[in-house]
């Protein structure tokens, strides 16, 4: 039980869970008052923050939850018998239950990590440790199903964020397995026919993103999980761009592992989470080892606790976990279905506005296009002909508009689309239509500023 009451976000009094009302601009205006960073002016212009795909801003309730933890409950968790240690441990484990519940998981199936990158590396290193243990005759036969070697294949897609690509490259290198990828077409669409040829009897693990941080698309999870299941392969879902923006239930999606980060969903930096099916987490060897994750230690060897403690060596990110729980409370009370619906509207507004500009190429689905049966979510990346993304970003920055420029940690995807960099606008629950329109109006001026007429091709 919390010792102080954390202010809940504003919400409509007439909220009916069966028929949620639209998250409209007037409610968003109230939501914005909860986010101190959004009220700032930069260079005399109001901040237009369209970089939530990189990291979200934080509501006051999250900042206060972290501060309150330090003021009333700060102690190390899962060690020490004094009252503060008990309070800290309770807060830490209640936070786990809250975040696990948010993604349809049991508390024991949610491991805290520093970020999503660490979560994905954790899975990759647990698999290579399983390989090593099996080779050296350590552990029981249940470990063999994780062991990889020559002839085995790990499958990813061509549109992955580097965090869901490089750990698998290195796992393949360490174990001798081969890394294969599902290609995309000229527009960025996954080639599902090719996927069904690539995912086969040799496939041991399929890792893919739930929602693309560049294209704004939601992946065909059911099809890919179905292919992996039929091949008897494990599935790993990079859910960094889905969990913050739409209702997600990992059990319903039937994936074995999933990673997401707190800072993209109103929580502080420094904390992320790994979901794993319980029987898998309990059977996998640990990644990081040390204090707080053991049962018996001698000078020669150690025995390890079951998950999630097995994967949480050393002093943990306690205040961040507590604040992460406050973040999911905020999102839950606002309503993930409503947030997703609003972001789909903002994504469409962005896509329409960008696609309508001469000399600007929208990446991913065209306006009104649904890929794999899902609308674009609140992300739209684009290329301005003749103007480098950094110059586009600099121009927008001079208007107080914050966007992401560069390859967005997806170099292979950009290369496939014939680009080295792009500019990306991304929305969240606090983004207004007026902000989208102000961004579009400024974007329309970019080519003119850099001496390119709006009619020139490139």
């Amino acid at each position, binding site marked *: 039980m919390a010792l102080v009451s954390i202010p809940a976000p504003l919400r409509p009094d007439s909220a009916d869970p069966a028929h949620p009302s639209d998250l409209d601009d007037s409610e968003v205006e109230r939501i914005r008052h909860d986010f101190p960073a959004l009220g700032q002016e930069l260079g005399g212009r109001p901040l237009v923050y369209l970089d939530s795909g990189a990291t979200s801003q934080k509501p006051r309730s999250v900042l206060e939850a972290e501060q309150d933890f330090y003021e009333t409950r700060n102690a190390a968790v899962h060690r020490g018998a004094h009252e503060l240690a008990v309070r800290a441990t309770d807060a830490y484990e209640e936070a786990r239950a809250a975040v696990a519940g948010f993604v349809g998981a049991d508390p024991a199936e949610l491991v805290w990590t520093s970020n999503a990158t660490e979560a994905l590396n954790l899975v990759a290193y647990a698999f290579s440790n399983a390989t090593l243990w099996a080779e050296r005759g350590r552990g029981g036969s249940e470990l063999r199903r994780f062991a990889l070697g020559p002839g085995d294949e790990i499958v990813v897609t061509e549109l992955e964020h580097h965090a869901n690509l490089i750990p698998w490259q290195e796992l393949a290198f360490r174990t001798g397995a081969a890394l294969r990828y599902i290609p995309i077409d000229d527009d960025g669409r996954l080639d599902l026919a090719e996927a069904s040829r690539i995912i086969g009897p040799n496939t041991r693990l399929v890792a893919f993103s739930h929602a693309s941080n560049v294209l704004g698309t939601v992946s065909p999870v059911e099809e890919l999980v179905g292919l992996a299941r039929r091949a008897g392969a494990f599935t790993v879902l990079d859910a960094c761009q889905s969990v913050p923006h739409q209702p997600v239930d990992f059990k319903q999606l039937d994936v074995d592992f999933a990673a997401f980060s707190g800072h993209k969903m109103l929580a502080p930096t420094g904390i992320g989470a790994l979901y794993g099916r319980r029987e898998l987490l309990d059977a996998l060897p640990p990644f990081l080892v040390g204090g707080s994750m053991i049962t018996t230690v001698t000078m020669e060897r150690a025995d390890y606790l079951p998950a999630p403690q097995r994967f949480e060596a050393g002093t943990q990110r306690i205040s961040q976990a507590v604040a992460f729980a406050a973040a999911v409370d905020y999102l839950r009370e606002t309503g993930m279905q409503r947030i997703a619906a609003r972001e789909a509207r903002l994504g469409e507004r962005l896509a329409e506005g960008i696609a309508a500009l001469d000399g600007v190429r929208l990446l991913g689905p065209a306006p009104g296009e649904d890929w794999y049966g899902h609308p674009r979510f609140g992300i739209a990346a684009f290329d301005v002909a003749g103007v*480098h993304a*950094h*110059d586009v970003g*600099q121009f927008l920055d001079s208007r107080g508009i914050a966007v992401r420029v*560069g390859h967005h940690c997806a170099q292979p995807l950009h290369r496939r689309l014939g680009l*080295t960099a792009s500019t990306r606008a991304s929305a969240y629950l606090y983004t207004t239509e007026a902000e989208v329109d102000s961004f579009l109006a400024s974007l329309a001026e970019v080519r003119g500023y*850099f*001496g390119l007429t709006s009619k020139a091709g490139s």
Partner: protein
Amino acid sequence: MSLDALYQQVILEHAKERHGSGFADTLGEAQAAGLGESHQLNPVCGDEVTVRVAVADGAIQSLRWEGQGCSISMASASVLHDLAEGASPEEFRRLAEAFREMIRSRGQIPGDPEVLGDAAAFEGVSRYAARVKCAMIAWVAAEDAARQATG
């Protein structure tokens, strides 16, 4: 600070004209006393520049480059070509040092057109910490290539 102070007209023009871009006119090995080539990459934005330097008769006879990137990095390479060709390696070294000192000064050191010529137009870049590397990338490549050519 206004955007126009960063993107001065001379920078936008160089970004379009790209003086010295392309290796077709590079001085051949037979004519040069020393040759150097350096490739530099900015992993943050993917900008990359390759610079080739040929030294003969105590001077940089040719400095050519190829690359892709933002207007600041491309304009900077173009200005570099104009300034470095004809300079002695020592003059070029001093020029590059003066350019670096201005670019890294966070707006404290104004560009001196007497010393830096068109490169003085980059003084606005020094107020944008995120763009300093864009302005420097071709110069870093040129310094490395010149060292090889004279070494």
